[in-house]
Every structure is written in C-alpha cells, then in structure tokens.
C-alpha cells in the first residue's frame, strides 16, 4: 500500500514539476529537463506499481532488478553486444550503405537506370524484407555473416532512394554556374551535388541505423550460435528469465540510441549549413 501511495505521490510531483518547467522560458536546460523528469517519473511509477501490486517478477520485473541483472551479467551482455551489434549490424550497415551509395551514383549517371530503379526501390522499401532472414540464415550459415547479409538488404533500398533523391537536389541554376566555371561531371559531383545531397543521405543513414539493429536481432530468431542479443532474448523468454530479457532490451535501446545519435552528430558537423541545423547552433 505504501508503495502505491508513493507511486501516486511521485506521479503528482513529476507532473507538477513538468508543468512548472514547461511554463518557464524555453532554453536548452528546460527542453532537456522536461523529458528527463517524465522518463524518471515513469520508471519510479513502474517500480512502485510492481512492488505495490506484488506483480510476479516473471511477468514484469521492477527496474531495480533489471539494473542488478545488468551489473551481474555484464560479460554475457557484452558478448551478445559484440556478436549482434558490432559483427552483425555494423558490418552489414557499412556494406549496405556503401553499396547503395555506389548504385545511386550509377543510377544518377544513367537516367534510364534511375527511371527504372527508383519505382522498384520505392516499392521494395515498403515490403517486409525482414522475411528474407530465414533465407539468409540458410545461405550464409548461423554465424554473424547471415545477420550482416540481411542487414545489407534491409538498409540498401531506403539508402538508395534517399541518395538518388539527394543527388537531384542541386538546383539548375547552381549546375549552370558550375558549367560556366568549366567544371566537368566529377568536379560538379564532388563540389556541388554531393554536398547538396548530404541532408538526404544522412536521412537515409539515420533510417538505416534502426533497420540495421532490427534486422540483426530478428535474424537471430531464425538460428544463431549460442550468443547474440536475439538468441538471448528468445531463449531467456523460454526460461522465464525476464530480468535478463529486459537487460538485453536495455542494451539494445542504449546501442540503438547511441548509434542514431552518433550519425546525427556527424550529420550536424557535415551539414552545418542546412536550415534545419542552423537554428540550433548554440
């Protein structure tokens, strides 16, 4: 009972704090503090509800138990992280994005190819490509190679479509100016069209980060060596070790956000000139 009351008190307190915070003039501090307060309140309410209502830890472990599990099984989590994120997702991400970039350059050079590839690419990007996972496992074996392969296929089309669109972003006026400078195809590409395409390319890169992790994890449901995040999640659910599952999810969440954040940081450095970035310089 005491836990439930505490939960309600924290809820009310967090709510009041957020209303007060959002009423203040907007600054970096308030726009950071409000979501943090919201998140912390949710976690505390979760803890209080689990303890107050005596929910079985098999159904929903409290955050403290998950934290303890992370501290205890650090080496397992690290092993899975290396297997899934570094070997599977990251290598596939790099290969897939580079391949898509190359094909996009080709498609840009040859209009015929672009007219043909772009509708097909848009179509394929909407398909449930994750379904290819069992086939990739069959072709490339249980280890990380098959996970990298499915990631390559998953990130390829969003990246391709975005890059091709980006390469069309430079305006006719700017291209004409390059021609009056006597610049050839490659000079125009490197000095004008690639920089102009960067916002689109980074959009594709950001979409691809999430897809890469999803692909690597789900592919492990179809078969994997005895390590990896997807493997650990599916087997731990079977053993009802839900605290380990939540610990893996926490790692996946942190890895996913860090991956996305890293790409977003590089984007900010590369496309500092773009209107969407200029507003938040300081």
């Amino acid at each position, binding site marked *: 009972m005491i836990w439930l009351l505490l939960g309600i008190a924290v809820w009310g307190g967090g709510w009041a704090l957020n209303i007060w915070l959002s009423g203040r003039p907007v600054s970096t501090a308030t726009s950071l503090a409000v979501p943090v307060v919201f998140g912390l309140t949710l976690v505390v309410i979760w803890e209080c509800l689990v303890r107050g209502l005596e929910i079985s830890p098999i159904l929903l472990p409290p955050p403290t138990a998950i934290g303890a599990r992370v501290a205890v099984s650090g080496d397992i989590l690290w092993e899975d992280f290396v297997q899934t994120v570094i070997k599977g997702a990251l290598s596939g991400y790099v290969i897939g994005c580079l391949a898509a970039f190359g094909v996009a350059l080709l498609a840009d050079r040859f209009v015929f190819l672009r007219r*043909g590839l772009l509708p097909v690419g848009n179509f394929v990007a909407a398909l449930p490509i994750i*379904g290819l*996972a*069992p086939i990739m496992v069959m072709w490339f074996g249980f280890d990380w190679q098959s996970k990298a392969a499915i990631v390559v296929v998953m990130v390829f089309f969003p990246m391709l479509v975005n890059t091709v669109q980006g390469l069309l972003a430079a305006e006719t006026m700017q291209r004409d100016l390059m021609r009056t400078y006597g610049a050839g195809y490659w000079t125009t590409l490197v000095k004008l069209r690639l920089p102009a395409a960067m916002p689109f390319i980074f959009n594709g890169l950001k979409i691809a980060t999430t897809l890469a992790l999803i692909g690597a994890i789900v592919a492990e*449901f*179809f078969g994997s060596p005895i390590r990896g995040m997807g493997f650990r999640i599916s087997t731990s659910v079977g053993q009802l070790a*839900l605290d380990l599952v939540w610990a893996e999810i926490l790692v996946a969440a942190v890895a996913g956000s860090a991956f996305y954040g890293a790409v977003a940081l590089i984007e900010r450095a590369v496309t500092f000139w773009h209107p969407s970035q200029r507003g938040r310089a300081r």
Partner: protein
Amino acid sequence: MRSVVPVLTVVGAIFVIWYAAAVWLNAPWARDVAARADRTLSVTELVADTWAQDKPKLPAPHQVAVELWDTVVGQNVTSKRSLVYHAWVTLSATLLGFAMGTALGFVLALGIVYNRVMDMSVMPWVIASQTIPILAIAPMIIVVLNAVGLSGLLPKAIISMYLSFFPIVVGMVKGLRSPDVMMLDQMRTWNATRVQEFLKLRLPSSMPYLFTSMKIAMAASLVGAIVGELPTGAVAGLGARLLAGSYYGQTIQIWSALIMAAVLAATAVALIGLAQRVVLKRMGMA
C-alpha cells in the same frame, strides 16, 4: 508513362539475375547427386536440374509461382495448407494493430499539439522509442500476454500497434501544425471555438500528412504481425510459414510466403493511396 520501359527493364533484369543465381547456387547439389550416380551432367541437364529441385537453395521463379498457385487456388480457403488462410491470419492482426496504432497515434498527436507539457515531455520519448529496436521485445510481449491470459490475435496486434503508431504521431503533429499563423488568426477573427478551429481548419489541412503516414504505418504494421508470429511456435500465419519453412528447409514455401507478404503489403498500401486520391480530390487538395 515514360518510365514504363525502364521499370520493365529493371524487373526483367531481376528475373534474369534470379534464374542465373538459381543455377549458380543449386549447381553444387545437382553435381553432387550426379556424381553419386556416376553420371556427368551436360550443361542443359544441369540447368534443367537446378530449376527443378525439391529443396533448392534458391528456387527458380516458376517454382515459386507453381507453389503459389497450388496453395492459393488449389486448396480450400479454410484448410491449413492454404496460403490464403495463413495470409488472412496475418492480415487480421495487421489490420487490427494498424487501427489501434492509428487511433493511439492520433490521440497522442492531439495531446502533443494542444498541450505544451505533453509536447515537451512526450515528443522526445516518442522519437527515442524509434531508435530502439522494438521488434526485440516481440517475443516477450507474446509470452507475457499469454501468461496473463491473452493469446491469439491481440498480442500480435499490439506489436503491430507499437510499430505503427510512430509514423502517425509524427505525421499528424506536422499536419495539425501545418496551418500558418495567418489562417489561425483568421479563425480567431471569426470567433471560432477551439473545437471549430480543430474541425474546420487543423483536421482538414492535416489530411495529406495523415495518408502519407498511414502508408508507412501499414507497412510497419505488417512487419510487426509477421515477427509477432515467430515466437508463438509457428501455429498459423505468414511468419509461421517462414519459420516452419526454415526449420524443414522448405525454401519454396518460404519464398511463396514472402511473395504473399509482399502482395499483401503492396495491396494495402495501394488501397490507402487510392483512398488518399479520392479524399483529397473531394477536398479539392489534389
């Protein structure tokens, strides 16, 4: 229309590559069988064999087409051997999840647009929730809901909902905020209430955004339903066909389930596109 020829060329090239890859990937097995029977294969025999194996590494397109025909037209719709039955199982979860996700996304977007506190506290988490590989939670949601007594359609639909609410939130927040200050001021000079402002200005101007997000949400929802079927032990649905196929090496079955999923996704997205065109035309926006 000028892109018809290039698209057909690319699609044709895909089929050519597919057939060639089938020869390349299935050839070792064909040679192996022939070697054990003390025969050597001529090139035509080899090609014919690679395109007609029982459990090929990569089935040729016509094998998949035959399997599709057999399981779609050749079986009773209620039979467990019918692909239509499995597609319907997946589609029902997809549609339910999509409806729930759209409703949730709509409500969240309303809250975010009309409530500053919610805008500042919820919006960053909505975005952060998408950098998390949500599908990883799928097995747990299924098992936990099963333990509480929920099974069948609803757990899968919840995963679909989780995947599909995000595009709707982002699109609708953008859409509901798309009327500019001038229009909002005009509403105020007409002494419009907040409800009137919402119904007559914000909601209509958000329609193009809504349909675009619904297309993305539908595709995401189907992925959610398919992945949601994996941990339940392959009972029914396209995801179950994929899993069973990968257990027993039935590649043709995997590919036909994949094509079916692709057809479902394409049809659903096309239907939304059609609704978009009709609605926007009646509203004078297209």
